[in-house]
């Protein structure tokens, strides 16, 4: 090619990034790596290695160690020994280390960028301009949290040893997202990178040690899914943080159920990209490029479902197809491409198969006409037009450069279609009308919403999903909190087993006038209803005195209660002021009947009248507290580096099942239900099995306090059996179980159906009178999920 030739054609020509340094590094290790444990490389116990390939060429790149049980054990042991001294080092000491790691990354930025591009197949532009700088930003940002931790999180301590499992789509960036908050907060880490892309993690660990990070603080164990499973199951691990597929996320939830390990999951998505007819169409077309042709579409939050308002759909289609004509696919190290290689042949096959299915199901396929390399794992940018919500490709995550398009008529329909998915990771809304855009954003069930933008990320802004996209956040204050636990919960003891109640003693009144029979019913949808099975159970005093009957709720009662709670959606949109007023009103009405409730508590539990009265007073106060919190547990405004803001909104989770403990039958019930409804959730509560009558008496208080129908539903009966039904119900968004260890385990294990958020006590008793342990943000945090709405602005 001569100058004259280029002058004529005005083609771009090749622009390769040099890869010499990265190859030198590989060569220095003879392209064979051990695990990185206690500050040095160690050979795998089994002696086995896996081969990692270069996706752009299909050639072998290096051998990485296959982690076995002994390797995981050694790494967890190293992390365990390092944890106490690392925590003891203090916030400032850890801040210095994180700062050094950020600087180290910046110093070797190009080496990381090139190695990542070679190993993963993604364009050097992205590793150089996005992955590496953002990874450094995460380390720097969290150095700041380490510095401020003692002041800002004084009532929290680190969780301990964290097992972190990261995916292959952003290997280095996900490493930073995971380790930065964990290390900042005083935890130590065993990281398991994806087997396709372990190299930058190994390079990072090596250079981190050189930068002075103490041995054992960051350990890297490589290997395939089996190694990950070993890490998940290792009893020495206090928390698992996982990013990857929803399928594996479910397995992890199941296998950690009941172990007491805390868990955050960042899983898949099928994120909507909504374009209204008043949008900047050309801007939105570029948005699609950033949404789905970024990182070859291998992005969990990729805007993969294009929802177009009917009036502009045809214009949009034409402009998008025109835009596709200029996309360039090529070798990852070429500096003039838009897309590189898909990570592995298995992914390429999956993409091809799904596209084929989409076409079979009626989609029109458009692909970028530009040439793609004939060798290696490449797939062209693809648009599937005329897709319907029922098409496979509209439902399944493709995890490739394929966007599917459908239309809508009205804003309501856009929201309905956007939320018509099991996932809830991200969403993008395009409109030049501020009122419309800001009305739609809160209605989308997604952890991140970008207004007139897409795929924006920053360390200061929490990232994470709703629904089956997982739980927990990464980034921001909300992300750091995932790596801390409250001091107030540390000393909890296993709940004492209550003695069985004696046999019923029947004492009639003879021929005296009997009291009027009062049978407690279930409370569903604002109405007192008989249990579906029409059975009831006796409620006895500790001495065996018959105190009354409570309904024996069953599956169908739970079903009805969930349906009622689901239809009470308006509660979530009620103003916080309105919810506060109702909580105060509940306190007022409970107070008016305080004597009666105290008598009931005394009768059921046998506590002294003074103690029973104290429980009522504490319950009244608790309602007041949540009335107070209702309009004060607010979100924050993040300040990411752009002209704009990110609003971290506290949103209700939705329908929450609550299984209440036997101790403090009124206060326990109020302590769990009140924070949930204060934040706009609707509740299906199963009261104490042994002492249900305080809760059933309470429905009369609910009825007189303007609580809308369906906001609080009460189903009495066999508590753990009902909790199991709640756990298995896929229309319940979260489940709180306070009771036995077994109930906690069952709740966690069965929550996988729709990956509901769980808050369980593992049979450890809370002191409901200790406000530090049982009132306020300590529970409110679990009553909300954080949605971050990114609003770039400017005109």
């Amino acid at each position, binding site marked *: 090619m001569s100058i004259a030739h*280029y002058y004529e054609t*005005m083609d771009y020509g090749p622009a390769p990034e040099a890869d010499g340094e990265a190859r030198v590094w590989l060569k220095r290790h003879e392209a064979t790596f051990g695990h990185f444990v206690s500050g040095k490389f160690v050979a795998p116990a089994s002696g086995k290695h896996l081969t990692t390939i270069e996706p752009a060429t299909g050639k072998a790149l290096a051998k990485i160690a296959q982690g076995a049980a002994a390797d995981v054990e050694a790494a967890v042991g190293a992390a365990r020994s390092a944890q106490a001294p690392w925590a003891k080092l203090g916030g400032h000491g850890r801040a210095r280390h994180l700062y050094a790691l950020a600087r180290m990354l910046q110093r070797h930025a190009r080496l990381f960028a090139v190695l990542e591009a070679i190993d993963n197949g993604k364009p050097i532009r992205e590793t150089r301009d996005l992955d590496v700088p953002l990874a450094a930003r995460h380390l720097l940002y969290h150095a700041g949290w380490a510095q401020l931790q003692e002041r800002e999180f004084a009532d929290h301590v680190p969780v301990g040893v964290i097992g972190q499992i990261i995916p292959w789509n952003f290997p280095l960036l996900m490493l930073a997202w995971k380790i930065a908050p964990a290390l900042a907060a005083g935890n130590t880490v065993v990281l398991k990178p994806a087997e396709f892309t372990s190299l930058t993690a190994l390079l990072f660990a090596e250079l981190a040690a050189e930068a002075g990070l103490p041995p054992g603080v960051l350990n890297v164990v490589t290997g395939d899914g089996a190694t990950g499973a070993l890490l998940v199951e290792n009893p020495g691990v206090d928390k698992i943080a996982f990013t990857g597929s929803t399928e594996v996320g479910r397995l992890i939830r199941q296998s950690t159920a009941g172990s007491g390990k805390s868990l955050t999951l960042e899983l898949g998505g099928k994120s909507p990209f909504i374009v209204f007819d008043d949008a900047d169409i050309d801007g939105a077309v*570029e948005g699609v490029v950033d949404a789905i042709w970024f990182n070859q579409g291998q992005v969990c939050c990729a805007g993969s479902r294009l929802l177009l308002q009917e009036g502009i759909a045809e214009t949009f289609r034409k402009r998008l197809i025109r835009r596709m004509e200029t996309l360039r696919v090529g070798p990852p190290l070429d500096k003039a491409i838009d897309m590189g290689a898909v990570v592995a042949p298995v992914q390429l096959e999956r993409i091809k198969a799904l596209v084929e299915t989409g076409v079979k199901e009626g989609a029109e396929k458009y692909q970028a006409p530009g040439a793609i390399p004939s060798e290696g794992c490449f797939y062209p940018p693809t648009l599937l037009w005329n897709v319907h919500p029922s098409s496979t490709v509209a439902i399944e995550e493709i995890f490739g450069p394929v966007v599917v398009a459908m239309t809508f008529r009205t804003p309501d329909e856009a929201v309905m279609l956007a939320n018509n998915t099991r996932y809830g990771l991200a969403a993008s809304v395009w409109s030049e009308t501020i009122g419309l855009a800001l009305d739609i954003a809160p209605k989308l069930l997604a952890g991140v919403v970008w207004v007139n933008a897409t795929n924006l990320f920053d360390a200061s802004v929490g990232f994470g999903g709703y629904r089956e996209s997982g739980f927990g956040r990464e980034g921001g204050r909300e992300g750091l909190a995932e790596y801390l636990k409250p001091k107030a919960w540390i000393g909890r003891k296993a709940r004492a087993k209550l003695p069985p109640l004696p046999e019923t003693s029947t004492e009639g009144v003879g021929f005296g006038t009997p009291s009027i029979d009062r049978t407690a019913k279930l409370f569903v949808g604002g109405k007192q209803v008989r249990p579906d099975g029409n059975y009831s159970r006796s409620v006895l005093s500790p001495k065996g005195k018959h105190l009354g009957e409570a309904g024996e709720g069953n599956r169908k009662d739970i079903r009805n209660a969930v349906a009622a709670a689901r239809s009470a959606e308006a509660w979530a949109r009620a103003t916080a002021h309105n919810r506060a007023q109702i909580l105060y009103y509940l306190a007022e009405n409970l107070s008016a009947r305080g004597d009666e409730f105290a008598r009931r508590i005394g009768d059921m539990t046998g506590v002294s009248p003074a103690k029973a009265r104290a429980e009522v007073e504490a319950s009244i106060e608790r309602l007041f507290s949540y009335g107070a919190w209702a309009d004060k547990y607010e979100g924050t405004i993040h300040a990411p580096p752009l002209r704009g803001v990110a609003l971290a909104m506290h949103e209700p989770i939705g329908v929450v099942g609550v299984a209440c403990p036997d101790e403090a039958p009124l206060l326990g019930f109020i302590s769990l239900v009140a924070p949930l409804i204060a934040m706009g959730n609707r509740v299906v509560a199963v009261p104490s099995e042994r002492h249900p009558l305080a809760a059933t008496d309470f429905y009369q208080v609910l009825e007189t306090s303007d609580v809308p129908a369906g906001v609080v539903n009460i189903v009495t009966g066999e508590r753990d059996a009902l909790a199991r039904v709640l756990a298995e119900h896929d229309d319940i968004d979260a489940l709180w179980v306070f009771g036995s260890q077994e109930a906690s385990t069952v709740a966690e294990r069965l929550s996988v159906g729709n990956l509901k958020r769980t808050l369980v006590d593992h049979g450890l008793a809370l002191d409901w009178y200790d406000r530090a342990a049982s009132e306020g943000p300590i529970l409110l945090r679990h009553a909300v999920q954080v949605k971050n709405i990114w609003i770039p602005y400017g005109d």
Partner: protein
Amino acid sequence: MPNSSAVPAQPHARDHNHTHPIARNTGRALEMDWVDEIRINLSAAERRVASLPGRRTVKKDAQAAWLLKAITCIDLTTLNGDDTTERVKRLCAKARAPLRTDLVEALGFAGRGLHTGAICVYHRFVATAVEALDGSDIPVAAVSTGFPAGLIPHDLKLKEIEASVRDGAQEIDIVITREHVLTRDWRALYAEVRDFRAACGDAHLKTILATGDLKTLRNVAKASMVCMMAGADFIKTSTGKEGVNATLPVTLAMLRMIRLYEERTGFKIGFKPAGGISTAKDVLNYQFLMKEELGRDWLEPDLFRIGASSLLADIERQLEHHVTGRYSAFNRHAVG
């Protein structure tokens, strides 16, 4: 409603040194819907242009070729109060021979008559420049209509255009009345530009929007569309005298309007960024944006011009580096 009969209805061929001749924009009736429906989001536009330099680059021979192409698109400009006849002649000489002979030869371009796109001067120097460029293909562009503020009486503006055309200017760079944009008086803007176009006759009309004064991309995009409907052959960003001159986001907004206008009318409109483009790296980014947003045709001087005074010197240094492998200095290249 004004109609298109007010502007010359005959499309006719432009000079063209590369591809097929381009039909000249006839202009058309003002369509208010085309203006009202324009939406442009600043942040989205900024993200597009911010990522472009990372998405496109040219190296080695390709880079040399692109820079040579850029030279052919430069409107070599002098628009200063102290301009004199001799100064203008010197600039014309540079336009004829923009690159040192040994470099032209080393790059394999000897005999191609490489020259800049045009010379751009005030009316006073049009005749001087036309004479100095006699025998070359280099057109003379005159800034006009009370450049740079554009606040002289309308009839004088038309007279100024006519005078420059009489003196031999083949291109007229007019300034619009910014007030029409800032007050949303699109009919007045349309009428003004339509009159300028009529006054140009066969000379090509470049409409300077003074985007630094218009402030928002919405204003820029809407003014672009109105000017094209009124018969502009080129739309141009700036006079070089506003506080902010050509920028990539403003360019993106204007290019999208050019694309839309072509979709609707079939006419290809040229684009000229001016002011602030002073390095080879800068100009490549503009070229990438032209190619990506509009296509190959818009890399040639009949659809792309760059208003610049110091850019050429940097391109010369870069091309010398390409030839010799050594970094060059300004004093090794003739001034214009």
